[in-house]
C-alpha cells in the first residue's frame, strides 16, 4: 500500500499553486459555513437571532442554549434535554456497529478466502441491500419485529441496523481481504489452524484500517438514522428522534439557539469520529472499498 500513498509526480507553477490554494480555501469556507452559522447562533440569546444578523458574532455570549439543549429543554413531557437520549443512542449504536462489523468481516473472509460456486451471486444479492430506500421496508419490518417480539426495543433497533448495514460492511471487508494474500490462509491451514482460528489469529489482527472504515461508516449511518429510530425505537428513542422532537414541534415556541446547540450536540460524536479517524477513511477507500 505504500506505493499508493505517494504524492503525484506532477509539478505545478507558482501562479497555479496560488490559485489552487485559493480555491481549496474557498471551498473549505463553503463547507464550514453551515457549521459556522449553527455554532455562532447557538451562543446567542434568542432575541439576537430573530431580529439580527445570522452571520454576526453574538453581542452577548451565552452558553445557556447549550445547557438547555443538553439537560433542561422540553422533549416530550419531560424537561430532560437530550442527555438521556444520548445514552439510548449509545446503547443502540455500539452493539449494532460491533455486530455488523464482525459479521461483515466474517462475510468478507468467506467471500474472498473460501470461495465456492455462486459466491459472487450471494455477494451481489447482499450488496443490493445497500441501495434500497428504507421507507419501503418500514411496514413489513414492523410485522417481522412484532413477530419476533423485538418491536419498540433496543435489540429490535440493533437488528434492523445490522440487517441493513451488513451489505456495506461485507463490501468493505471483501474488497480489503481480496488484496490480502491467500497464501497466508493456506500457510495457516497447513499449520493446522481451522476456519475460525485463521480468522481470529491471522486476518482479524491485520484488519485495523478497514475495521475503522467500517466502524466510521456504520457509526455515522446508525447514529444519524431517524426513520427506524422513530418507528421502532419505542420508549428508548435515539438521539436523532429527540433532536427532531426538540426542533420540529409544530405549535410550540421555537428556540432556535437551543435548536442549534442541540443539533451540534447530536452531531458531536460523529464529527469526533470523522476527525479522529478520518484519515483511515480515505486510506480505506484507497484499499479499494469504493468499488461497488
Amino acid at each position, binding site marked *: 500500500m505504500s506505493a499508493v500513498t505517494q504524492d503525484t509526480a506532477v509539478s505545478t507553477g507558482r501562479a497555479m499553486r496560488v490559485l489552487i490554494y485559493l480555491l481549496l480555501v474557498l471551498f473549505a469556507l463553503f463547507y464550514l459555513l453551515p457549521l459556522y452559522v449553527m455554532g455562532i447562533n447557538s451562543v446567542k440569546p434568542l432575541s439576537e437571532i430573530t431580529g439580527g444578523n445570522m452571520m454576526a458574532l453574538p453581542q452577548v455570549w451565552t452558553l445557556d442554549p447549550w445547557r438547555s439543549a443538553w439537560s433542561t429543554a422540553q422533549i416530550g413531557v419531560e424537561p430532560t434535554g437530550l442527555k438521556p437520549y444520548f445514552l439510548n443512542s449509545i446503547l443502540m449504536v455500539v452493539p449494532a456497529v460491533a455486530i455488523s462489523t464482525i459479521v461483515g468481516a466474517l462475510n468478507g473472509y468467506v467471500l474472498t478466502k473460501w470461495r465456492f460456486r455462486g459466491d459472487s451471486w450471494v455477494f451481489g444479492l447482499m450488496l443490493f441491500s445497500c441501495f434500497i430506500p428504507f421507507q419501503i421496508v418500514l411496514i413489513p419490518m414492523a410485522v417481522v419485529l412484532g413477530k419476533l417480539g423485538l418491536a419498540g426495543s433496543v435489540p429490535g433497533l440493533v437488528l434492523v441496523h445490522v440487517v441493513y448495514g451488513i451489505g456495506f460492511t461485507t463490501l468493505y471487508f471483501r474488497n480489503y481481504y481480496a488484496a490480502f494474500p491467500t497464501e*497466508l490462509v493456506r500457510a495457516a491451514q*497447513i499449520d*493446522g489452524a481451522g476456519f475460525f482460528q485463521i480468522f481470529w489469529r491471522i486476518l482479524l489482527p*491485520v484488519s485495523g484500517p478497514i475495521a475503522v472504515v467500517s466502524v466510521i461508516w456504520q457509526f455515522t449511518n446508525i447514529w444519524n438514522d431517524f426513520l427506524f429510530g422513530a418507528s421502532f425505537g419505542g420508549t428508548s428513542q435515539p438521539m436523532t428522534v429527540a433532536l427532531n422532537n426538540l426542533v420540529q414541534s409544530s405549535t410550540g415556541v421555537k428556540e432556535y439557539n437551543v435548536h442549534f446547540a442541540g443539533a451540534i450536540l447530536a452531531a458531536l460524536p460523529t464529527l469526533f469520529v470523522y476527525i479522529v479517524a478520518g484519515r483511515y477513511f480515505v486510506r480505506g477507500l484507497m484499499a479499494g472499498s469504493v468499488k461497488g
Partner: protein
Amino acid sequence: MGFLDIRNVTKSYGQVEVLHRVDIAVEEGEFLVLVGPSGCGKSTLLNMIAGLEGITGGEIAIKGRVVNGVHPSKRNIAMVFQSYALYPNMTVGQNMTFGLEMHGVPKPARDRALADVAKLLQIDHLLDRKPGQLSGGQRQRVAMGRALVRNPDVFLFDEPLSNLDAKLRVDMRTEIKKLHQKLKTTIVYVTHDQIEAMTLSTRIAVMNRGHVQQLGTPKEIYDTPANLFVATFMGSPAMNIIPARVVMQDGVPHASVTDAEGTPRMLRFSQAAMAAWEGKDILLGIRPEAITDPEGADRKSGNIQSLPNRVTVTEPAGADTFVTMTLGGRDAIARMRADAPVAAGERYEFAVNMEKAVAFDPATELRIGG
C-alpha cells in the same frame, strides 16, 4: 512404492483439465524439483500434495497412506511459499511456533524446537521482530524455519527464492542445498528457474501444459533431453537448435550445417546411430558452452570439431563472452572465454564439442540417435 506417490493424478477446474495423469514416485530423502513455464500446473500439483486443492482423479499417498481428502494439517507436511506468507501480526518466534501451537504441542516443547531451528538457520537474534522489520533474505529464512520446526515428512517449496534479488538467490540456493544434505528430508520444490532446478535437485520433473515431459536426474535432463521442449527449456542461454541434414562421410554420420555465408559445414556425430537418418533433415541441438573458442574447449572431449563462421554480435558478460552467429539460417549463441579475440563482423574458427550435441526429429520433436 515410493515415500510420496503421485499416481495418475489429474486436476480439472470446471471443464478445463489443467493436470493430465501425472505419475511420480518420490523416494525418501529425495529432492524433487518441478520445473516448467508459468501456468503449466506446478503450483497446482504442489497444492494437491499439500491438500490445499482437491484431487479430481488418481491418488496421492504419503508413506503408503492415501491422503486424498485428508485435511492439510493432518498430512504432516510443511510448505514454504513464494511470498513466504509470514503472519504479519506475529513475531518471528510466534510465526515459527504457530503450527506447533495449533497441533497442541505444549509451550516448553515448542520453545525447545524453536531454539533448535533458529540456531540452525542463524535467526536466533530475530525472534522478537515482526516480519515487516526483516529483509527479504531473513524473511525467507523465517519461512523455512516455520516449515522446519514442524519436522514434517515432506517439505513443499513453491518458488521460495523468486522474490529475492539475484545475489541473495544464489546464496539461499546454496543454503537450501546444504540444509537438505544435512537433514535428508524429502523435498518437493517448484521453480521456473532452471539453474535452481539443476543445482538443487536429485531429480527433476519438467512439466509443460499439465504434462510431465521428462522425469530424471539433472544430468539426464540436461545432456539427454527427451524432446525439444525440455532441451530448450533447460539451460541459459538456451540450447541452439540448428536445422541440419545427416550426411555420411567416410562411413560415419555427419551433420551438414550451413554457415553465415550459406556454405555447408560438416560436423561429425559422436552417435553412430545417427547413420539411420542419412539424407534426412534433423534439428541439431548444441548448447552454447559446447561452441567455444579452441582455447576454452574441453580437453577431455573426444570429438571437438572445428567450425569457421562469421560473428554477428559479441556480448562480453564478464566471466564469459557470448557470441551470436548464424547457423543453418538461425541465430546461434556460443559461450567463449571472457577474453576470446572475437569482434562483430569478423570470421572466427569455433570449436564445437560434438560429444554434447543431440539431434531431434523435426516432426515429432523427440530426441533421436540414442
